[in-house]
């Protein structure tokens, strides 16, 4: 493992994660379908998980990998709540397009 990390270099892992994270950010900012927005948030979180594992190998330290389990659990709980809210939105307005949510303004 150490050998592979030396060959590729930790910087490349960071660049890849930042790229994935930015894809997630732009997905959240530009897509209007709530399901795709949820997916983009998952991409953001998983980009970070990838970087955690890479750093964990880089430091020869298992804590980072343990943290990934925490963040995966949290992401699962978060998306469960999000989908529940989405279901009740869908029942009320019959659409998952978040640009329809315009009742609150001022």
């Amino acid at each position, binding site marked *: 493992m150490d050998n592979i990390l030396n060959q590729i270099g930790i910087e490349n892992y*960071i660049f890849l994660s930042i790229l994935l994270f930015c894809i*997630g950010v732009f997905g959240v900012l530009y897509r209007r379908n709530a399901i795709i*927005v949820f997916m983009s948030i998952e991409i953001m979180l998983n980009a970070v998980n990838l970087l955690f594992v890479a750093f964990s190998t880089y430091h020869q330290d298992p804590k980072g990998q343990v943290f990934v389990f925490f*963040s995966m659990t949290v992401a699962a709980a978060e998306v469960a709540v999000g989908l529940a809210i989405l279901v009740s939105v869908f029942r009320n307005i019959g659409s998952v397009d978040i640009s329809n949510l315009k009742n*609150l303004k001022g």
Partner: protein
Amino acid sequence: MITLIAITALGVFCLIAEIFNLRKALVPVTVLGLLGILGSTLNLYSLGELSSDYNTMIFADNYAKTYSSLFILLTVFLVAMSHDVYKEHQTKISDYVAIKVFLLAGAVAMVSFANLSMYFLGIETLSIALYTLAGSSRLDIKSNEAGMKYFLMGSFASGFILFGICLIYGTFGTFDLKEISEFSGALDKAIWFSIGVSLITIGMLFKIAAVPFHFWAPDVYEGSPSLVTATMSTLAKVVAFAALYKLLAAMNLFPTIQFQNIIVTVSILSMTVGNIMALRQENVKRMLAFSGISHAGFMLMTVLSIANAASNLCYYTYAYALAGMAAFAVIIAVTKNKDNENISHFNGLGRSNPLLAAVLTAALLSMAGIPIFAGFFAKFNLFTQTIQAGYLVVVIAGVINSIISVGYYFKLILAMYTKETQETTQNIPFVYYAVGVISILINLVIGMHPNVITDLLN
């Protein structure tokens, strides 16, 4: 740590009470349990370092103790009010109460963490509980919208916080706050560290709704059920501040010039934008949302006078949260069966219900910073010490904004005392009076004896 375990056990108890059909006794028992935990929190720590380790996950110092007490107190008020608020949803009351108690567990974890993983779990427990509560009025389309917006913004911000934690871990190879604190004092750090700290700060500024990241707050505050808005504007805001301060202090950031410039800018912007937008609001909850944004600016200002930052922030948050809780107790009582929370519902409250009107007036005066209430002394200390630290510009902006804020607080007070009402008086349950009066009394007491809070902290 015992506080945290006890709170979680209480939450589990709330869920089990449902099975044994103890719904009637649920709220009183939870309130008593929380009061017991509050007593033991204040008491246990005074016996010494009873629980400072737990594999370096929890560090229960005075800072944690002071804030935990405030959070438990606020939750007591919220749970007490939920009996009446959820009267028509008796079958779900144990879920609502349990979620509030778990939210408190997240809040306590966020101020007593000694490890970034504990901090992350705390912030997520708090946030996920709040997303659920914000969307909890299932058939109301406004509540759905509020829940959805809060969820999207909150998890977006959580992503930034997680990335920040990851980069800090990458720099030092540890999650332990004490080690990070030692390493971050060194001069040569990888560039990742600064990026990571910036990302965490951005995420936390989202959660406290400071200005460049505030746009979700008014919508979410307006759409959520009033009791949940009370939770967000008092508990969640204070928790996020306490955690942000603890993190930034541990990373030795306050002395750096760049960081101070950011705080000055964000603070002035939050105060100004929040106040100016609040002036033109007709909905009371929306108005308090913008007032909360401007208060976020004041609370950020505390960080500038480094020596007294912790005690100033603590005092300000106590004053703000208690005044907010009193104001929301009245707002929930008055607008209980109404469609919206427009100021016109408060017309003539001074005549039809003098006690509630007095409580709301006192709460708004405390937020505006009028003497004898804690809000005044909080602002007074803050301004004096910020001038001594040499940030005259921020203080001038703060004073001007305090004057502007009087404008919209008095709009509500004038509506209560000078306008006539057409509505018939309704019967208001005792609990709202109790919550309002008790929070205002505590507010007055800490206003007259500021050292109550400072003693707790030291």
